[in-house]
Every structure is written in structure tokens, then in C-alpha cells.
């Protein structure tokens, strides 16, 4: 039997700008550079409040570690939700290193079912230290991230070995 390709139609529709501004619209869309300044000022204003929120989120995370790494799925879900939020927002508000640790922890939680409380705690403590340090050292943070990655790898290897010996 011959494989016939699905027929496809290609359509070009006018851009949103063309539709709104009519035929006299010409690309590219230009905007006063002060708009970007205004957006950056908006972030700076929100950053103050976000710093306080982040501080209290980290305290919440520290208090949830035991439950989140046990079988409490509700807490684990809530815990992941906070970490996911931090991963998405910390960098925008001037805490990129906190965001990097959150990203590492998110990935760990997404790939591992049996969470190691020590690894989770190390992540949160690294986030707290980066937040409290006004000028966190990027190089040191990268080294910490590498160490955390090695710890995750070792823990995964250990649980794999345990699973293998259980199944004989």
C-alpha cells in the first residue's frame, strides 16, 4: 500500500497589527524606549514585596520537608507548587541564583518518586543562603549546584541498587 501524504493548505493571515491599524500599517512595530524603562521600574517596585514573599515561602518550605518527603501527597504537591513558583519568578526579581536552586529541586521532584530529605533540605538551605546574601557568589553557587547534582545521582544509584536486591 502506498503512503499518500495528507493534503495540507497553507494560509497567510494578516498580523494583529495589520488587522487593527489597517492598510497603512507598516512593520516593524516601534515603541518609545521609555516604555521598557517603565516596565523595568514596575519590576523594581514589585521586587520589594516579592523579596518578603520569597523569604516566607522558604520558611514554609523548610517546615514542610518532613511531610513532603514522606508519603503525604497533598503536602508534596503544595511543596512542589511553591518551588515551581520560585523557579519562575525569582530570576525576574533579581534572585537568579535562588531560581537556579529551585529549578534543580523542581527537576529532582519531577524525576524522583522517593525523595531524599537531606537533598531537599540542602536545596532549600542553599536558596535561603542565596536570598540572605546581598551579593551571592555565582561561582560558589554553580559549585553547590554541581555537588547537589552529584548527590542526586548517588541517591538514585543507591535506590536503584536497593530495588535490584529486593527483586533478587
Amino acid at each position, binding site marked *: 500500500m502506498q503512503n499518500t501524504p*495528507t*493534503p*495540507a*493548505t*497553507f*494560509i*497567510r*493571515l*494578516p*498580523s*494583529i*497589527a*495589520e488587522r*487593527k*491599524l489597517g492598510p497603512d*500599517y*507598516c*512593520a*516593524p*512595530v*516601534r*515603541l*518609545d524606549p521609555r*516604555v*521598557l524603562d*517603565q*516596565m*523595568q*521600574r*514596575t*519590576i523594581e517596585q*514589585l521586587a520589594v514585596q*516579592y523579596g518578603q*514573599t520569597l523569604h516566607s515561602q522558604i520558611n514554609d518550605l523548610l517546615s514542610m520537608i518532613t511531610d513532603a518527603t514522606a508519603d503525604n501527597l497533598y503536602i508534596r504537591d503544595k511543596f512542589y507548587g511553591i518551588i*515551581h*513558583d520560585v*523557579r*519562575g*519568578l*525569582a*530570576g*525576574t526579581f*533579581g*534572585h*537568579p*541564583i535562588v*531560581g537556579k536552586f529551585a*529549578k534543580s529541586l*523542581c527537576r529532582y521532584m519531577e524525576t524522583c518518586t522517593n525523595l531524599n530529605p537531606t537533598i531537599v533540605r540542602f536545596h532549600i538551605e542553599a536558596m535561603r543562603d542565596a536570598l540572605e546574601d*546581598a*551579593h*551571592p557568589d*555565582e561561582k560558589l*553557587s554553580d559549585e553547590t549546584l554541581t555537588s547537589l547534582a552529584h548527590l542526586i545521582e548517588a541517591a538514585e544509584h543507591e535506590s536503584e541498587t536497593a530495588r535490584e536486591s529486593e527483586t533478587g
Partner: protein
Amino acid sequence: MTTNKDADAQAKTIALLRDLKVLIVEDSDAMRALLTALLTAMGITHISCAQEGDAGLKRFTEIMPDLVITDGMMKPTTGYAMTRAIRNLRTPDNKPAPGSDVPVLMLSGHGEPHIVKWARDGGVTDYIVKPVTAELLLARVLAAISSPIHIVETATYRGPSPRRRLVPHEATLTPPVKSQS
């Protein structure tokens, strides 16, 4: 120096943004607040929000936005599923519904290739990996509204070409610079 032509182009853009209807679908309260504040700073006044994909789709059909900005992973319905549903909207006589070609800008914490591919295949127009910066958001919103919309229509799919290369845009972030004191 600003020429009359530049001033005219900028005035048109201001008018365009003032008239633009944007739907934000995002489960994080803080991210919704941030996006709303940034779009407002751009001069966009018609901003609607929903907290997940089902509510987003409902809001979409109510307001028919010119641009959708959505998160990826949300519960119960993701931004990926919502985008597919928007692309598949039909009129009662089974024609593509007006607005189903809307630019969809996805903001996600996930930059892994298989997830970006999943978003592309679902009909996402552009993909930004969080964290977002003012510069990045401004550039991608302007690109989304000023680029012509190219649609591919087959028996099973209607939307931006699923074979195109969707590049995830990522901001370069650096920690605060150490003071010399």
C-alpha cells in the same frame, strides 16, 4: 533624534496596544500580577485573566482576545491542552471559529526540547522560558502582534506549522554585581 515618521509609528503602536485584548492564563497569583503589571506598563488596558486552561478557554470564547499569554503546566487543564482546544474551535457549520488563529505566547519553566516540541505540535506560536524579563516580554509581545499569521490546515490539524522550528526564548540573568567598597 525622533523624526515625524518615527513619532507617527510610535503613536500608531500606542493606539494599537491600547486597543489590544490580552488573555493571561496562569495559575501563579504572583506571576499573574507581574504579567498584568508589565502589560499595563506597556499601555495595554484590556487584560483578562484565568487561573487554568478550562477557565482560560471559557474566558477566551467570551472576550475573543487578540493575544493569549499562557503558562504550560496548570491543573486541572494545562496551557498545552487549552491551546489545542483553541486551535480546534469550530463554528456550528464546522468551519474554523473566528479567533482560533490567535497568537498564543507560552511562558513556561520548562525548556526541555520534548516539552517545547509538545507545545509546538499543539499550536503554540512562541515560547518563552521563565524567568521572564521586561525586555524579553516586550520583544515577544510586539513580535506576536506584528508578525503575519501562517496557518497550516490538514484533516487533523489547524494552526501554526507543526514542522517549524520553535526556538524557546530565554533571558540572560546575572546576580547583583558586587560593590567595590
